[in-house]
């Protein structure tokens, strides 16, 4: 068990990287507290698996340091780092039975037989595979195989961190939910640090206490699910999290007031006037409502998603989505929209630009 610190970690898959584009991971500074449940969320190819492999030691970073507590582990191999990792596709040892699979990491480390037996049975109990211990692993269903891969990570009670690399990809949807709750439950009972990599926002938000959102090799925002939803630090986060994502509308700023065409838009608070660049208003569809007096828009598309409708309208040439319950307008109809002021914010060059917003993290990150 340890606190994990990444200090100025960069990684490139090229032998001689020179330009920033050559790096799969731009400079990353991160701290993972002992016992936390983290999710690493981002689109495919954003570098989250690379980051995971750097922490586990399957890859060595091109630059920077990785610390477990105070120990520099940058050049240590995965088994020396004492971590566990669960992969996208279940990895099991086909010829062994379930018991031997679970015992394998302990046997390799020369753990005493009675201790192994006790740990294997405990973990099997936790994962609800106790009745399968004697079965051959090759014949198990995909979800049980994935449980077994997790079990091999959990069986060592001294691991520094357990990492999951999109572990539910091959699992049927109805079992996904079950396994996800199982994971959460496991985290609560054993309190290992867990890092969960996914591109699925639901998985990330339900599993983690803290979500790290990544895009193109950089960390864009770290926060609780609520923070990410209610106060995205970057338009990318607003877009990526939420269904549909945050509306982003180009706007002008005149004397500290955001103007959408000729309409002044009331924002969450005073804006940070020190920043220059492309100005945009961000507001989630949940906070856009149909009113009698407001911004003019034309209905372009309506989708019924069950509990509510998603109305897609055009303000000038820019689309806006609104989540709406109740009577729906007709296609092509002119409607009036209003944005909830406490959830409407200004973004400059993609970054949140309100006076109380924190300093943005990656200076080089541009959208």
């Amino acid at each position, binding site marked *: 068990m340890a606190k994990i610190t990444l200090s100025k970690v960069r990684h490139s898959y090229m032998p001689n990287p020179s330009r920033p584009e050559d790096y799969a991971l731009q400079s990353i500074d991160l701290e993972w507290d002992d016992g936390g449940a983290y999710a690493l969320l981002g689109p495919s190819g954003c570098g989250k698996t690379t980051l995971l492999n750097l922490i586990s030691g399957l890859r060595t970073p091109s630059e920077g340091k990785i610390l477990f507590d105070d120990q520099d582990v940058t050049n240590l191999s995965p*088994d020396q780092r004492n971590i566990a990792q669960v*992969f996208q596709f279940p990895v099991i040892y*086909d010829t062994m039975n379930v018991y031997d699979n679970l015992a*394998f990491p302990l046997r*390799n480390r020369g753990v005493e037989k009675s201790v192994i037996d006790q740990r294997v049975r405990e973990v099997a109990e936790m994962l609800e595979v106790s009745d399968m211990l004697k079965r051959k692993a*090759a014949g198990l269903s995909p979800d049980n195989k994935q449980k077994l891969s997790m079990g091999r990570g959990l069986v060592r009670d001294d691991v520094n961190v357990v990492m999951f690399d999109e572990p539910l990809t091959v699992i049927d949807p109805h079992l996904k939910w079950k396994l996800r709750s199982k994971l959460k439950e496991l985290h609560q009972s054993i309190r290992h640090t867990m890092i969960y990599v996914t591109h699925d926002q639901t998985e990330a938000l339900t599993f983690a206490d803290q979500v790290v959102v990544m895009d193109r090799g950089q960390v864009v925002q770290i926060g609780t699910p609520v923070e990410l939803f209610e106060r995205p630090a970057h338009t990318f986060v607003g877009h990526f999290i939420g269904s549909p994502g945050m509306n982003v509308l180009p706007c002008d700023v005149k004397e500290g007031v955001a103007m959408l065409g000729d309409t002044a838009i009331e924002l969450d608070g005073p804006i940070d006037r020190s920043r220059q660049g492309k100005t945009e208003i961000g507001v989630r569809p949940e906070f856009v409502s149909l009113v009698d007096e407001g911004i003019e828009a034309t209905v372009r598309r309506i989708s019924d998603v069950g509990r509510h409708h998603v109305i897609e309208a055009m303000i000038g040439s820019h689309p806006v989505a609104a989540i709406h319950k109740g009577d729906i307008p007709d296609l092509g109809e002119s409607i009036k929209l209003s944005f909830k002021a406490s959830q409407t914010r200004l973004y400059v060059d993609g970054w949140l630009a309100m006076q109380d917003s924190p300093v943005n993290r990656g200076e080089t990150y541009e959208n």
Partner: protein
Amino acid sequence: MKTENQKAWFFVLPVLILVAFNAIIPMMTVVNYSVQETFGDNLFFWEGLTWFEQILNSERFHNALGRQFFFTFMILIIEIPLGIAIALSMPRKGFWVPVCLILMSLPMLIPWNVVGAMWNIFALPDIGLLGYFFNHVLGINYDMTQDPTAAWITIIAMDVWHWTSLVVLLAYAGLVSIPDAYYQAAKIDGASNWSVFRFIQLPKMKNVLTIAILLRFMDSFNIYTEPFVLTGGGPGNSTTFLSIDLVKIALGQFDLGPAAAMSLIYFAITLLVSWLFYTLMNRENLNDYEEVEH
């Protein structure tokens, strides 16, 4: 609604005709010879199972069969582990992959009797590179036309040279199909190299190795051309395998009846052993999947 008609037979018919002409009919002529005595002028006399009894009781057959099994045993015990070892040490990606694969395929592309001729010349004590090296550089007496041991070693070496590649290519195909995650997981689990081989690579290669063993068994058990060109079954009868002996009986002595009976016995043994290999190696697989949950 199910319509029944017999049209399907038309689709199967070409295959049936083909199989009849290239397998069943030739085979039945052999069965026909095996129970009769032939003389010139197409005179045939019914002999029943006499030839079968004679072959099964003859010491000559027993010896050839023994040599055959010993040869096949040696081939399998050398080529399978060697093939796996070479496949393991081949690169998995990069420039050298195609180079290795082509180099490995070359021996298999050479016609069998050319292989025999090559090794014959190669092993000649006076002008052959191998023969000269043994006799004149190492000072070891090596002459496969005189010494049965030398003949055996040469034949086995030739077959290993010719056919290990097949095992290599099959094993390699099995190896490259293993996802990286398996190796990474093994690293994290603290597995030794031996464990990685024993619990990941070998199980993943199992299916292709079954095929490799079957093919090498059948080919080596039926081997004819190469030893015939290399040693002609000699010195004496020391490298006379079943197929060489069969040709001697059938074409040399023109004993068609005994030769036919021997062919059938030979065929039955090949079939039986192949079947045994296959069932034994596949039984494990079946066990694995009986336990699949639904």
